[in-house]
């Protein structure tokens, strides 16, 4: 994997500059999801109490994670599932390959799993001769376009129906001029069903794993995970170790929060509970760490493990909505991506924490109350301390810091208009050229008299400022 630094600002600019359609469409539809979420949340009188409870249950589970992992493993095994452990992506993928190879399976269907994305599993399997078909429509669109998902729950939301018509025309022979969502969805249904029926295994992720019964829960709107779990003889589930909840009754809280937060719907169309293999089937569960235990040990950042992958922070994020998810160049985009991605590669994702206005809306929508916005700021401190900041940016702050440290320097620079242009937009510009401000904005006009000069003239007319005060 390349660790070239992702230039998220440039990628976002490209998304905006592409045309007049994609960015406004993206912003509008995700904002609509946020509005639906608000309405759904408002209809639950105990909404804020539920967020508190969910956050506490997750914090409890994570601070006793060893216990709950053992409990989950014991109960899943008792119910006949085979449980595997993977320290990282490579071990995860190898487990999958071993299960498939030993059964001569060369074709799988998979529903959406962010963990499998993290592990880059599809590419791994395909280079070893196994055909992988995404069964979620959005994921399938992205797969056919050779792109990762751009959003956790709406993988292809950065594409218009017209874009998808073009992709389907090439991939499955639909009419390139017919962008009717009904037509395109039906065409993919027909194409996908044959693949479903031929697949030797169905793969899923898990939204929640329940320690007390060894069950896990998968939520979809299409029923695609259930097809994968009910048709092929083998079901393989990839579960991150942070997905655990202690009890079945916890689901009452989390299922109420999940889809309302994600899409503003009361629940997903299918909320499926798997406890051991189905009649006549096999169930394999791969409990995967892949950096989670390390994250658990980071005092400033372990709360990010509470995330239930609803995508609400992405929908509300004004920056994400204008950027498109692919701009982040990572498995996770948007606010949650900013705080998760650097745990995988600090250098590659060192610019991500700056791709935020710190407006704080993400923290307020998060159903498990992760302090996302504060963590973004904390990641900036990590990036600054470890000198990941581009050098021009670091030097600029050195200069600004010096000016603000010395009142004489500051006020001297400030009163002379030409110097003020160098210093005052320093609050905005530091030593960059004025162009980034001026491309879409007029420069502010500088006042003839500063507040301080006014104060000295009118409010302290008797008092001559001492040289020290200047």
């Amino acid at each position, binding site marked *: 994997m390349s660790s070239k630094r992702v230039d998220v*600002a440039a990628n*976002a*600019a490209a998304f*905006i*500059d592409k045309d007049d359609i994609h960015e406004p469409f993206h912003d509008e539809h995700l904002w609509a999801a*946020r509005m639906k979420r*608000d309405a759904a*949340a408002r209809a*639950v009188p105990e909404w*804020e109490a539920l967020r508190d409870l969910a956050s506490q249950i997750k914090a409890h589970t994570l601070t006793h994670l060893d216990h709950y992992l053992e409990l989950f493993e014991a109960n899943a095994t008792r119910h006949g599932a085979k449980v595997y452990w993977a320290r990282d992506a490579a071990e995860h993928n190898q487990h999958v390959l071993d299960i498939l190879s030993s059964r001569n399976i060369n074709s799988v269907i998979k529903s959406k799993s962010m963990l499998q994305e993290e592990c880059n599993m599809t590419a791994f399997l395909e280079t070893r001769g196994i055909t992988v078909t995404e069964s979620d429509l959005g994921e399938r669109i992205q797969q056919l376009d050779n792109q990762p998902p751009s959003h956790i729950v709406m993988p292809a939301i950065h594409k218009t129906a017209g874009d998808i018509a073009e992709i389907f025309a090439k991939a499955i022979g639909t009419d390139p001029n017919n962008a009717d969502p009904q037509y395109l969805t039906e065409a993919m249904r027909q194409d996908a069903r044959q693949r479903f029926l031929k697949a030797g295994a169905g793969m899923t992720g898990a939204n929640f794993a329940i320690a007390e019964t060894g069950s896990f829960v998968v939520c979809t709107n299409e029923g695609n995970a259930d097809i994968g779990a009910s048709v092929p003889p083998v079901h393989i589930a990839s579960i991150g170790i942070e997905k655990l909840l202690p009890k079945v009754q916890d689901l009452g809280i989390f299922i109420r929060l999940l889809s309302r937060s994600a899409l503003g719907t009361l629940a997903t169309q299918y909320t499926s509970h798997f406890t051991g293999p189905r009649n006549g089937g096999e169930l394999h569960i791969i409990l995967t760490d892949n950096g989670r235990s390390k994250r658990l040990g980071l005092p400033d950042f372990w709360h990010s493990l509470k995330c239930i992958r609803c995508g609400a922070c992405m929908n509300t994020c*004004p*920056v994400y909505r204008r*950027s498109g998810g692919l701009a982040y160049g990572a498995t996770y985009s948007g606010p949650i991506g900013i705080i998760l991605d650097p745990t995988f590669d600090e250098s590659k994702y060192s610019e991500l924490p*700056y*791709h*935020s*206005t710190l*407006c*704080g*809306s993400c*923290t*307020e929508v998060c159903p498990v109350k992760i302090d996302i916005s504060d963590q973004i*700021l904390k990641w*900036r*401190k990590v*990036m*600054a301390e470890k000198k990941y*900041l581009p050098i021009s*940016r670091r030097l600029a702050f*050195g200069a*600004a*810091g010096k*000016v*603000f*440290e010395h*009142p004489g320097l*500051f006020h001297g620079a*400030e009163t002379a208009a030409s110097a003020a242009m160098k210093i005052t937009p320093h*609050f*905005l510009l530091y030593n960059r050229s004025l162009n*980034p*401000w*001026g*491309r*879409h*904005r*007029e*420069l*502010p006009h*500088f*006042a003839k008299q*500063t*507040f*301080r*000069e006014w*104060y*000295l003239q009118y*409010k302290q007319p008797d008092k001559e*400022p001492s040289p020290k*005060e200047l």
Partner: protein
Amino acid sequence: MKVALFIPCYIDAIYPEAGIATHELLERFGVEVVYPLNQTCCGQPMANEGDNANSAAAEQLFVENFKGFDYIVGPAGSCVKHVRQHFDAIPQTEAVTQVRNNTWELVEFLHDVLGVSAFPWAYFRYKASLHNSCSSIRGLHIAQPSEHMGPYFNKSEKLLQMVEGLELVQLDRPDECCGFGGTFCVTDEAVSARMGLDRIHDYLRHEAEFIISPDMSCLMHQQGIARKAGMHLKFIHIAQVLNGGPF
């Protein structure tokens, strides 16, 4: 009551009238206003970059200037939020903690501390829109964020409703971030400008003539965009409206 006035650097240089209005407004309520002359910057721009080394000196100087005052009031949500919530580049001595606890944003000071109930001198016969900054809303809780399901409140709106003649228009996205975000506005110019432009279109759709804010930094960015795009919108600090000028 004695108040130390905290005038952030960009208000000092670019929007002194907001500082003047704040000063006059506080005096109208019988407050003794002191302006420590050696103040520069609270350190927020550097801290927001994660640059603690360079924000420490500014934070230290801020404490030197403002220690010992019972109330420190600034007409700028994001700067006050920095002092109150993120002012941690320097050791948290008693003086530092006291300064942090005693620092108020103007609207919350008027609303919570002075408990203001009228602005008899204020008159503003325009359709206007309120832009509470994100720092003020989610950092200082001067208004209920739209995504939070608690009871509705909006302190700056409540104050503006006391101003005769003023008609506040509602927006499609009442508290959407304008895209200023400090250094974000230059390092992420394209997104920042798009957010600002979208915000301005929201004002125009609702026929606002004036945009009123407790945070001039957001308005500086929005004003720059509106001017460049040739849109006739006027941007003004809430202190000027509540004080009846200077305009």
